[in-house]
């Protein structure tokens, strides 16, 4: 099952301040651990909302709203996508996530499970796949 570890923004990330060397190293180590364990699928840091925009739907209208946006703690600064065998395993990996804004700095990450095939209505049993053309 897949989980997304979402890093919340703060004033620094919104100002486009790059993490310092030691923070880069800590994140690098953590990502290496995920990769060594075969559970890392994807991840990226996001540029500040000043470089993004929103589309707002109002009735039949859609309106472009340029960044930056103000509710800093609700904004996203990056994500890591992992695939693990249980919710508890995701919990354990998330507990090991280094403070994304550096030691001692107030920060928050949020972990959310992704919808999976199994979450959709069950279907009758499949016949064994004998698809000659796979691969």
């Amino acid at each position, binding site marked *: 099952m897949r989980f997304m570890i979402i890093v919340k923004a703060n004033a620094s990330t919104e100002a486009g301040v790059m993490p310092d060397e030691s923070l880069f190293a800590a994140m690098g180590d953590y990502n290496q651990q995920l990769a060594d*364990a*075969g559970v890392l699928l*994807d991840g990226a840091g996001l540029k500040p909302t000043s470089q993004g925009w929103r589309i707002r739907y109002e009735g039949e209208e859609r309106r472009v709203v340029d960044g930056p946006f103000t509710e800093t703690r609700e904004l996203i600064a990056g994500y890591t996508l992992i695939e693990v065998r249980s919710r508890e*395993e995701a919990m354990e990996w998330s507990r090991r996530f280094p403070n994304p804004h550096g030691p001692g700095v107030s920060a928050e990450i949020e972990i959310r499970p992704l919808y999976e095939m199994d979450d959709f209505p069950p*279907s009758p049993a499949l*016949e064994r796949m004998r698809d000659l*053309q*796979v691969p």
Partner: protein
Amino acid sequence: MREQADAAIAAVWRIESARIVATLARIVRDVGLAEELAQDALVAALETWGRDGIPERPGAWLVTCARNKAFDLLRRDRVLRAKLEQIGLDLEAREAASVPDFTDDLDAKRQDVIQDDLLRLIFTACHPVLSPDARLALTLKLLGGLSTAEIARAFLVPESTMAQRIVRAKRTLGEARVAFALPPPAELDQRLDTVLATVYLMFNEGYAATAGEDWMRPALVAEALRLGRVLAGLAPQEPEVHGLVALMELQASRMGARADAAGAPVLLLDQDRSRWDGVLIRRGLAALERAAGLGEAPGPYQLQAHIAACHARAHRAALTDWRRIAGLYAELARAQPSPVVELNRAVAVGMADGPAAGLLLAERLAQDGRLDGYHWLPSVRADLLLKLGRHQEARTEFERAAALTANARERALLLGKAHAAAQAGTA
């Protein structure tokens, strides 16, 4: 509360167990004994953590505890110690002398000695003295951290059967005096093949599972993918490792599209490609690029991954590069001769150069007799004949295929096609 703690400990175990078993196996030179000692450490963790809570660094706690148990045993058991000193020294010496390139490659990349032990553990669990079934079970147990009950569920056998299989596998390794070591260079390619075959077998056990079956079977797909990715980190210089990872990622990317709402299988060309998993496709293509970047002539896994990639790159079935696929099947047939590969090539050639060209290849296969009794051969011939407007012959071949398949749903499908061909012939 207690249950929650146990679930959390189980998660730590899943994450750490392979590394712990690998570390202990290096110390005691016996994967069976290493696994028992690791289990003892887990029992200790369940007691201590259940009472005091999970420590800040649970992995380190488990390793320390397990190592202490191993050293206690060595202090107590003098005979074992003497034996190990003998084997251990011999091994170290032989390994250092005989596999410089492989270990050097690893050394250059390795940040932690544990990676090396993990590789040894994989080679041991997939040792050729074991049967393929035993390799699978032991790999899931030692590398996957799965319980015997979970492995038994994955293979749809009683737990006692699986427990016996694992015990026998460990005994076989002991009796054959299999060293906890990397294979010597002369055997490396072949031993790596066995490891890759084991991982791919695990993948296919899960991939072939039906939707109604126990959830542990699809979990095999995830576990095989995970092990493949781990292996790619451990042996990054081996193109076929990346080839296998690419093949598995690309095949797994289609899992959500392989069945329709009623649960009936959907053939590749009829699948809703928007349901293919973009993350896995991207990872598969990246792994394939790594494999190709190592510059050797592509092996069978890489070739199959290239074929899967041709499908993955085609956003619509009509955009499939069949000429390239036909060429890749020809290469695959040279690398790993097989009539099934030839039949696939006939299909691809039929798509690339027209049904007459495909039929020519299929006829040649029919004459050589190696695929007698295999229902896909008449089924492929029937499809090609149908495209050529030879309806009566197509009908006969569809009926022949229907008679050969053991699968009821497939038989119904083939008989339907036979009927349709007959209708078209008289129209």
